[in-house]
């Protein structure tokens, strides 16, 4: 065997790994944080459905970031709309369901059992989720899981109303969300 042939031949290990889908957490430039939320089986199904509608270079793991970006933008828009008033949320929004009604969302039926699961979110989104949870908890006593459920439904509404290009990146979709609501 010549030296040239030896150079062209790749190792057996490299060959084995080449076409296999990568397992485990997808790599991200900034490491993501675990956040625990309780989701219903319907919400998990919805996450699977939404993942399919995402651009090719995004995966299901990116859904929580996007969902939190949408709820953060919507709540910020609400805050700005009632700026100068002495409340963060309008007088007539009396409970969490009223918020669903205000934003023309279908009120979920909370009959099925929720199961704890972890979502992985970017550091900024973890802060945004905490802020949204804080606002909704102070106003309506909503917990983190309810906040994330609302975020998921808002993301579904966003993706339905504003289909994203197949080549869009996470950053570009975030920008579209901000420009749409703020």
């Amino acid at each position, binding site marked *: 065997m010549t030296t040239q042939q030896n150079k062209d031949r790749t190792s057996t290990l490299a060959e084995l790994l080449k076409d296999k889908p990568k397992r485990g957490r997808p790599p991200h430039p900034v490491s993501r944080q675990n956040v625990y939320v309780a989701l219903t089986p319907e919400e998990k199904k919805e996450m699977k459905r939404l993942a399919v509608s995402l651009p090719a270079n995004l995966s299901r793991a990116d859904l929580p970031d996007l969902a939190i970006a949408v709820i953060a933008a919507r709540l910020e828009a609400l805050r700005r*709309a*009632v700026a*100068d*008033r002495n409340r963060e949320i*309008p007088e*007539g929004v009396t409970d969490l369901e*009223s918020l669903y*009604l*205000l934003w023309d969302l279908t009120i979920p039926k909370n009959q099925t059992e929720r199961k704890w699961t972890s979502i992985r979110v970017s550091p900024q989104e973890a802060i945004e989720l905490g802020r949204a949870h804080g606002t909704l908890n102070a106003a309506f006593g909503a917990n983190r899981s309810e906040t994330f459920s609302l975020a998921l439904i808002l993301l579904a509404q966003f993706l339905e109303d504003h289909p994203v290009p197949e080549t869009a990146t996470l950053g570009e979709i975030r920008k579209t969300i901000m420009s749409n609501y703020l």
Partner: protein
Amino acid sequence: MSANPQFGFEIEHYKPEWDRLGVVVPPFTIEADPRFMYLSTETRRALSKVSYMVEAGQGASVIVGEIGTGKTTLASWFHSRYHRRPDFVAAKIDETPKKSGLLLLRRIAAEFGLRTRRATEDQLNEFRAFLIEKTSEGILPLIIIDEAHELGPEQFVELRRLLNFRDPRGGKAYQLVLLGRPELDINLREVPDFNDRVATRSSLDPLTPDDTRSLIEYRLLAAGRDGKQPMLFTEDAIMPIWRETRGYPRSICLLCLHLCLELLINNGDVIDGDFVAKFLEDHHDYRQAV
């Protein structure tokens, strides 16, 4: 005074023993009382959308609904909630003056405690001065007009002029909530200049059987009945009530009021399907009894 043939007693002198039903006040009054306002899904939708538009300074909001769907209660709710807030001053017009735009402006001015003027321009100047005074204090004026389906084209013109006033943020200075029967939507189509300025439209529909049950339970709780007590209205009483009233809240309250009175007269404990059916058979014209 003769006894009422419906009930066999002098109804005006009759003092029901409400405490026997476990309540401290009559639970089914038909007056518009925001304390007893049951928030159905449609009511909550209207509340959230209209209050958002009001607080965001978007101008005019419209709520339509048939007779007895709770428009006046909703108008009272808006007035009571916003009038007590330090950043709002609210005026509620229950009955609009006929046709004249100036008379409407004068009525609104009187509600805000402003001077009433004889000329439209003078009256608008009063509103302008009032606006400057209030916006400097960070206060937003809110005008609630009930029975707005009775407004004429000339009155919509004057309301549009009020909506043209701007606050320092650039938002609409006067917030307007119009509540009326479905004819209001038709009337608005004839005044496109005003119609284009409507930020949100909501409708109040009759209640579903589930909402009917919830309304009855809510009213009893609001009147002081302990939630741990056995049900006063059983499950099988709900459908006959809903069928008879077609889900209109005022009709539900009127029928339930009569059912409660009948129960007290008969020293009964519970209102079930048979009780409702017998009552409707014996007192089919109960609406004329009071």
